[in-house]
């Protein structure tokens, strides 16, 4: 038995925690570099702002009514960690599915609906973030139940009002459950997505109930085993277990667009070096090594001129490593001669591939299959964890000076919960 707890408009509501003047107002949060809307308050949704819509494409009449904030991940990360603490205290097994969604294992719990109402109220009271909880015998049904709990509040009439906030599909008559599944569009089912949703609709499978009751052979033949598994989950047989530990990744990518266009060789290299440093930190956090490095840069795709240039390079390393200096040397070699003169670049990225756990590495005939100074890297990570990122760095990234390609965050709110100098003020 599973529950899915999902925060309502998480980033927007985090911003409102310490900016009460934003409550009840249409609010959007912008992606890195202030490009497009990645979160919207209910009021902004009502104005027709779309997810992922670029700020400069929002009509001026709507734009004028909007409060706008740059993504403040220092804040969202802190609130998310607090919610994680509350959930872990409430249930022994949880899976953090995203920054604002978690699955909980409710096996052996008695009054699950009561539990969900309590948990929902506790998260709301302790952190100030409104949320909804869905319960079902499978993860797919728990996710669907969460959609029901949200929609029952947001769109009155879509589902029975009694399911608002908390919806438990596990304690329902077969007929009631059928009514719920019939009212749920098939592309809202977890794992279906838009592409499959469109194909299913062409076949006359338009609701979650249709998918559940479709012939298994047909689903297997046309869509394969993944959707067949979703179908089984909709019917109440669990196929997908909690992932308490993040699975090993195939690659790690760090890329950003620059705040300003950059032409100088050295400035582009500094950006690439900074991303390489960050990628290596992520690598070590997951206790992985890399054996291949790629870099890319690109000009602004919105410049319709003839000077577009999107070069990329990648190389295998002589041995697997997690040492930032070795990755940086590879980046330096690849970056030579990569840029065209008199060209302005807008974007760059570094990706690490061929990731492995050190334990499973093949030993090389001449050595250990692995190079680098693990102790030095551990020391650097420890210092940066203790004193803040960027305390110690590798000189190539120019980490101390504020570079010209730094991210644009014109509407950034303060670090209310992570910096003693930026605490919210209480009048007395």
């Amino acid at each position, binding site marked *: 038995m599973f529950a899915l707890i999902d925060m309502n408009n998480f980033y927007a509501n985090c911003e409102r925690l310490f900016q009460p003047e934003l*409550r009840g107002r249409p609010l959007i949060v912008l992606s890195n570099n202030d490009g497009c809307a990645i979160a919207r308050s209910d009021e902004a949704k009502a104005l027709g702002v779309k997810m992922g819509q670029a700020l400069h494409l929002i009509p001026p009449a709507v734009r004028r009514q909007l409060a706008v904030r740059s993504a403040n991940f220092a804040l969202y990360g802190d609130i998310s960690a*607090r919610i994680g603490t*509350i959930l872990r205290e409430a249930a022994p097994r949880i899976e953090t599915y995203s920054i604002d969604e978690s699955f909980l294992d409710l096996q052996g719990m008695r009054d699950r609906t009561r539990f969900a109402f309590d948990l929902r109220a506790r998260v709301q009271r302790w*952190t*100030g973030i409104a949320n909804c909880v869905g319960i079902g015998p499978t993860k797919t049904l728990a996710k669907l139940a969460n959609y029901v709990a949200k929609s029952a509040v947001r769109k009155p009439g879509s589902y029975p009002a009694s399911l608002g906030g908390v919806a438990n599909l596990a304690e329902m008559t077969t007929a009631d459950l059928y009514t719920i599944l019939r009212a749920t569009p098939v592309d809202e089912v977890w794992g279906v997505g838009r592409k499959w949703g469109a194909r299913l609709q062409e076949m006359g499978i338009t609701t979650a109930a249709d998918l559940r009751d479709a012939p298994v052979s047909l689903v297997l033949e046309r869509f394969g085993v993944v959707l067949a598994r979703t179908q089984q989950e909709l019917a109440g047989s669990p196929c997908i277990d909690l992932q308490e530990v993040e699975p090993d990744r195939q690659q790690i990518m760090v890329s950003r667009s620059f705040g300003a266009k950059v032409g100088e060789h050295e400035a582009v290299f500094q950006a690439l070096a900074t991303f390489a440093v960050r990628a290596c930190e992520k690598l070590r956090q997951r206790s992985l090594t890399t054996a291949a490095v790629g870099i890319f840069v690109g000009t602004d795709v919105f410049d319709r001129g003839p000077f577009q240039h999107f070069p990329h390079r990648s190389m295998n390393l002589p041995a697997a490593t997690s040492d930032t200096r070795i990755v940086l040397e590879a980046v330096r070699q690849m970056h030579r001669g990569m840029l065209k003169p008199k060209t302005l670049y807008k974007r760059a990225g570094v990706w690490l591939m061929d990731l492995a756990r050190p334990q499973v590495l093949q030993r090389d005939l001449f050595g250990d299959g692995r190079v680098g100074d693990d102790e030095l890297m551990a020391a650097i990570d420890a210092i940066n964890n203790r004193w803040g990122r960027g305390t110690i760095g590798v000189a190539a990234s120019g980490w101390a000076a504020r570079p010209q390609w730094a991210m644009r965050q014109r509407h950034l709110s303060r670090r209310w*919960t992570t910096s*003693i100098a930026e605490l919210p003020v*209480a*009048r*007395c």
Partner: protein
Amino acid sequence: MSSLPNSEARLFGRASIDPCTLELPLAAVRAKLGFPSPAEDFQDGAIDLNRYLVRNPAATFLYRAHGNSMLDAGIVSGDVLVVDRSEQPQDGDIVLAQWEGNAPVCKVLRLRSAHMELHSCNSQVPPIIIKGECEVEVFAVVAVARQVRREHASR
């Protein structure tokens, strides 16, 4: 009022309540007689101020006090207020209150039969009366932290 200790923002750590602890060793109590000291049973080696000030890290937020209406309650402008959102505020508690999109205020909570009042600890400041129908969030202030330095005393 001007002679009161003033405290200004001083960096004394991150506001995020991570499990890093500040450990202050306790001096052992020496028994003068042949009798074992009863205090030895209570000696556990270290005091963690975070644990003393913050009982529920997930629900605790820090605010900076600004203003002098709570001086008689010992809250000086510039102090750090430790607010525990999981604590149920009761009549007479010092609270952080927030309503109608206003900036939060720190006052003493007085519960009346049909409404609530927010009192200052200063007879010249009249209480704020919150009508029953007004939606107000009230959280308990569970601790006040102030850094005291030599320069504050000499003012």
